[in-house]
């Protein structure tokens, strides 16, 4: 659906390396892809703990083999409708440099598809028009079998959506 409005400008430097392996997964009926090198593990559903006052984008934590890692939801970044957890739901654990520190972060996914390669020719820069998504949240789009695959700009998303905590301080006050 977004495919028609994608401008045909060729991707610039922020495309993915040609032939790099990516993991594709589904979030609210959209297909996303991440460089496979980032991915540490794909988990089945596990108990989540809600963190009151945290940014909605990362409102929970999970126990990943003795480490407590944040659980991020790309739906919030892209304004996608919420979905129920199903048997197919997975958590993709990635290792990402956050402020220079390698941090483990879980990403919610409704389905995880496969590890594949994306030919360079099929990628395009983020569209400027015709999408409700913030263009800076998208590194590039790729077409594959008539489908659009979104490569999210995680650094940007984490920086913007993960910082909402500052405004939460007022919730700390006792309820009078």
């Amino acid at each position, binding site marked *: 659906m977004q495919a028609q409005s994608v401008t045909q400008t060729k991707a610039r430097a922020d495309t993915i390396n040609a032939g790099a392996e990516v993991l594709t997964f589904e979030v609210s009926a959209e297909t996303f892809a991440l460089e496979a090198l980032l991915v540490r593990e794909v988990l089945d559903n*596990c*108990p989540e*703990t*809600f*963190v*009151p*006052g*945290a*940014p909605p984008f*990362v409102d929970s*934590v*999970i*126990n990943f*083999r*003795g*480490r*407590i*890692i*944040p659980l*991020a939801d790309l739906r919030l970044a892209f304004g996608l409708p919420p979905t129920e957890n199903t048997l197919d739901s997975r958590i993709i654990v990635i290792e990402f440099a*956050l*402020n220079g*520190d390698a*941090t483990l*972060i879980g990403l919610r996914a409704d389905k995880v598809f496969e590890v594949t390669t994306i030919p360079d020719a099929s990628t395009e820069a983020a569209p400027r028009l015709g999408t409700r998504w913030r263009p800076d949240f998208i590194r590039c789009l790729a077409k594959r079998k008539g489908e659009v695959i979104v490569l999210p700009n995680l650094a940007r998303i*984490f920086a913007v959506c*993960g*910082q909402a*905590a*500052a405004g*939460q*301080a007022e*919730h*700390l*006050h*006792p*309820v*009078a």
Partner: protein
Amino acid sequence: MSIDEGMEIFRVEAQELLEQIEQGLLDLAGNPGDKEMVATIFRALHTLKGSGAMFGFDDLAGFTHHCETAFDRVRKGEVPATRELVAAVLNAMDHMRALAEKRPVAAGEGDRLLAALERVVGEAGTNTALHPVPTPTEAAAQGLATWHIRFTLGADVLVNGTRPLPMLDELRALGECPRGACRISAVTTAIPPLDALTPTECYLGWDVELTTDQPRAAIEEVFMFVIDDMTLDITAAHPAEAEPGVPEVTKADHPVAPAPAAGAEAAAATDARAWRPDSQVRVPAARIDELMDRVGELVIAQSRLKQIAIASTDMNLRSVAEDIEHLASELRDSMMSVRMVPVVQLFGRFRRLILDLARDTGKEIELITEGEATELDKTVIERLADPLIHLIRNAADHGLEMPEERRAAGKPAKGRILLSARQAGAEVVISVKDDGRGVNRARVRTKAEESGLIMPATVLSDQDLLQLIFQPGFSTAATVTSLSGRGVGMDVVKRGIEGLRGSLELSSPPGEGSQVSLRIPLTLAIVDGLLVRVGKARYVIPVSAVEECLELTPEQDLRSTGRSLLTIRDHLVPFIRLRDLFKTGTQPDRYQKIIVISTGTDRVGLVVDQILGDYQTVIKPLSPFHSGVGSFSGATILGDGNVALILDVGALTTSAAQHDQTPLRAAS
């Protein structure tokens, strides 16, 4: 700290210093003009000499002294750091390493190395000889001579570990030769009246008349380690003719074992313990943390196993589960002890600070430390350094008076700062106490009013008034000094301590000085927690902060909707409904509980649905996304593998207190 521990510390230190020297020399070989590096090596040599002498490694100290002397000339630019010189020192260093490890060394090896070093230095620069090592042949060539030696040591030599008695013994040993004599008398003129006497200071001087066949250099050698901090006067008296009178201090009083023999005994004793450098391992802290994580996981897995075993009827499974429980808890205890270090590591850093402070303020300051053997988690120690520096600065700058003022107040001119540590249960109490003027209440009030922290004429209890010091942006120094008074003092300290899950208390009887006590948990890695349920989620509250648990009856609950205040023994305590704070959207339990927590003086009640019980747990940090949330200081993994958040008691009380103050200010 026992002597043995001291020896161990020295050996580890010596290893480090030697490594530092070695690296430095290697760097220097590549870049001979590097002044900074020369200075670094010189300092390391100097430290090695000093600590070596303090812990009885006399041969090491003596040998190092000569290398230091050589390097001093390089440092002063008299001699260039040639490759040959670097090589000679490197060779000498291997000898030092052998001496530090008390390995047997070939006789004469040291002298050969020093001779080589001297030759290289002589070739490299002007040929002023190094202090020659007095060899027996050289000494024998000398005739008898009588020397007048008068010396006084610095006031704080005793504190620094110098003992005058062995020096006197050494001098007397020099007089032990045919027709030799040694007469020692104490100079007592500097001893003050009893009320002004500080028992740890050295007021004595000595007059020594020594007839010996040893050269002057041998006498100077006795004072080698204190020469920077003493007055020494050696004059030659009538040469050769010595009066054969009986020495005043007879040998019967002090049977003087010849120094080398005593040294050998000590060496033999230590050798018996077969110390090798690899019996101590220095490990990166990150690895220990990782190990601690694994142990934490093991403990969690073990508690799951226990659940299964309890539910089962299999006796074998139960007994294995019990064994594993024992092992896991022992393993955790040993892990904890690995992380513990004595606070002496921390306190030792402040001696220098006190010296600097005394110089900058023009005050006389004495630092007394107590309980240095108290152990704390290494990470806690690191994070305590800054708050303690602040507190000591404050004590020196604001607390202590100028000497004249102190005398006028009938106190000794020298101000005291007492730094003490002791363990109290699962906490360590560290206090900084000074005997200065105490907190000036009037000035605190004025300052607080000026900076808008309180309204003029607000009625405050004494304790509340003192608490104002911990408010952000508060500083009482009338003049802004370079030391403190930048207005970032006590609130930073308070936050730092609360970051360690500790608390702090200030007491200050006027005129008697002030005392700040820090209560710090033994470790950051483990917390004793109270597990509670709020809505469907479980949270951990550190037990150290819990004062009491009460029931919130439905009637009280209804009555207090307008104002969340509770009366506990005539004190109003604000309370927070965690259900509302965390927006659980659940109905309250019929019998809610109030857990009253406190940090120092702030108290606040937390309303929870259920108290689940005690829970000792490993603390895990929160990710950068959640570290800013504020209500939580960390998280932990429960026995069933779920995550529970640990409440940040400091943040909750502060926010409650602020909330509480707003209407107060508006009303007045």
